[in-house]
């Protein structure tokens, strides 16, 4: 018996020192869980934007070579998921290989060309969608009237100048109609339309940039002057 008491004394003191209300223990556990979950969420959100941007960047590198090869081989019609043209925006110092198609898989590679819309240079509306992330159409909103967008195809350069920028809702597909804003009407001008999400990091609006063809130049005559100094 005494034996037990001797044993008891120090241990009891320890428990007395360590004692705390159970709610505190629970609170600590909860706090740690919340911290962890919060970190995971933030990291995932960061990946969803920057990781995707980074992946698109590497896809674009591959696509650029692919596009050059296919142009050299004079491949035929554009195939969904394959690059079909290139667009340059000197003001933003950017260029992208545009893939055919605007499914999520297509847009993971870079800007995508709405399949039913015109080809660069044609009368009609070349509609191109791109993610609003840093490696794609992040700061397309900086484009003002008169800024140059150059579309490059196998055969030529097509210089467009921005004429308008608008914010629309996702269902306003008339902006990519052959005659933008006037669906059903026969097009008379050669337009190019960029669509991306707005505001940044969100997607409940679409930012739309309309540009109009001002001139075109055959590939054989070299790069257009508008691209001077552009990579």
């Amino acid at each position, binding site marked *: 018996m005494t034996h037990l008491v001797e044993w008891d004394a120090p241990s009891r003191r320890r428990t*007395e*020192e*360590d*004692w*705390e209300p159970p709610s*505190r223990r*629970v*609170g*600590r556990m*909860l*706090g*740690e869980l*919340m*911290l*962890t*979950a*919060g*970190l995971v*969420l*933030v*990291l*995932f*959100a960061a990946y*969803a*934007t920057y990781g995707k941007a980074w992946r698109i960047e590497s896809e674009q590198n591959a696509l650029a070579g692919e596009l050059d090869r296919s142009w050299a081989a004079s491949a*035929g*019609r554009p195939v*969904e998921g394959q690059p079909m043209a290139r667009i340059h925006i000197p003001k933003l110092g950017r260029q992208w290989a545009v893939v055919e*198609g*605007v*499914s*999520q898989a297509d*847009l993971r590679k870079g800007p*995508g060309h*709405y*399949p*039913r819309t*015109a*080809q660069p240079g044609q009368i009609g509306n070349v509609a191109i*969608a*791109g*993610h*609003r*992330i840093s490696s*794609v*159409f992040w700061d397309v909103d900086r484009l003002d009237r008169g800024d140059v967008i150059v579309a490059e195809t196998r055969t030529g350069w097509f210089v467009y100048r921005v004429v308008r920028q608008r914010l*629309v809702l*996702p*269902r*306003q*597909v008339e902006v990519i109609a*052959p005659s933008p804003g006037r669906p059903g009407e026969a097009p008379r001008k050669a337009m190019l339309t960029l*669509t*991306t*999400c707005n505001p*940044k*990091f*969100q*997607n*409940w609006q679409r930012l739309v940039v309309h540009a109009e063809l001002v001139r075109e130049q055959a590939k054989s005559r070299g790069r257009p002057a508008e691209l001077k100094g552009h990579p």
Partner: protein
Amino acid sequence: MRSTSNGRMRSARRRVGWLSTLGLVQLLAGGLATVGAMATVSAPAPTVREVTGGSLTWAVAERLGAGDHVEVTLSGGAERDREGVFRFPAAGGAYDPETGTGTVTYGGSVTVVRDHKGVVIANPVVVIDGADSTLRAEVGTPGPTPTAAPAPTGAGETPPAGAVPMVTPTENASGVPVPGASDADGKPLTELARLSVVKDTADVRGQAVTWTAVPATATEASAGALAGLLGDDEALTPVTIALTYDQEPALGAGEGLLTSGSPTPSGSSTPSPSSSPCTSGSPSASVGATPSAGSSPSADPTPSPCVSPSSTVSHSPSPSPSATCPTSAPTTSAGPSASASPSASASPSASADPSVSATPSSSQALSAVTGGANVVLVHARTMTESPSPSASPSASTSPSASPSPSPLGTTSGCPTTSSSPSPSASGSPSPSPSGSSSPSSSPTPRKTVTQHTTLPAVNTGDDDTLAKTGDGYVIPLMTLGIGLIAGGGITLRASRRTVYLRDDL
């Protein structure tokens, strides 16, 4: 909406694919059996082979369907993939692997209406002769009511009679390997393009030969015929030609590897002792019917009376080990598959089939084709109930029903089991009393189903919304995450461990 229609399309295509493979197998088996049987008699071995499968893949023009008002109607086994490339299944023909020449007939027809101008391209024929190769087809204008028939969303299988007014399948019996002899009969063939199909550039795998992306040069004839489709200086797109030829040389090299379109009364229930590896040991002779069917690439413009109600319930428990199938999958046709039209797949005119009903005899067909180690028994007894040929005029509109858009592409399609009602159809113009069914057991009234699929001109990404170019969840996720981190920090801080002694409390 898109997804469902996609799904429907996919399933339909899968069904067609299955059937076509099945048909290919059976045609191959049948052809081999016959050829083998004949080969024992005929001494000289010609090098010309019968074409048993393959496909012609062609988008026609680069921006076909770039406009808004393009409507495409497919029939007779022609298909269209997501990129708008048409695919015509092989219907017959001959190919000489030694010399690399031949004539391949493909089935199916495609109607494209663009801005009220329509063109029908049906039953293309490729004459393979090196640099002088040509692509021909029946080119016409759609019937009086081009859009009337199956136009809107009528995907799936609608067998409307007379839906496609203009489908006049070529009866092109020219299996003649002699190049250039293709435009022998049927509707006049228009030379759509000049090709350069050289033997050396072919991708040969076994008995499958493929030329990929052969540049097509327009001809004057095609410029006129396709004027409704092509814009100014719009070029033709490259053509991909795939064919699978028979293992054994066809008999009667020049003239007859494909017998005439009229089905010959062929070996009814009598098991033909064929020496070919495929059907060896299989009592289901029947096969004779099939190769002949292969010849007529397509039936006949008029909805031919297809004897449908031949409810053949075959009951033959004998397995036929077919040695020909390179892949060892058994072919079994079960259920309501109109598998009896093995020929149908490879050669659209399954003329052999309807004839079955002519003989009221219950022929015991052996339906199991086994490959490799697998043995599948299918019990089948063919009980033909309708003794009269051409009993029920089945509304087969597209005579060249052969659905073989062979999904295998170029490989010889041996295996597979089909249990689905085949869209293949077949109107044999003349019912021939060829009794015993094809090697497959087709129990059930066979249906003549023509597939009409109207697809949107070009598959679009999103019609009703602009492309989704951002993730809506990023901001909420970010907010939640930051909130959780802050809350967790506060909670931790509040419940931090401190030393309390009981006495303090």
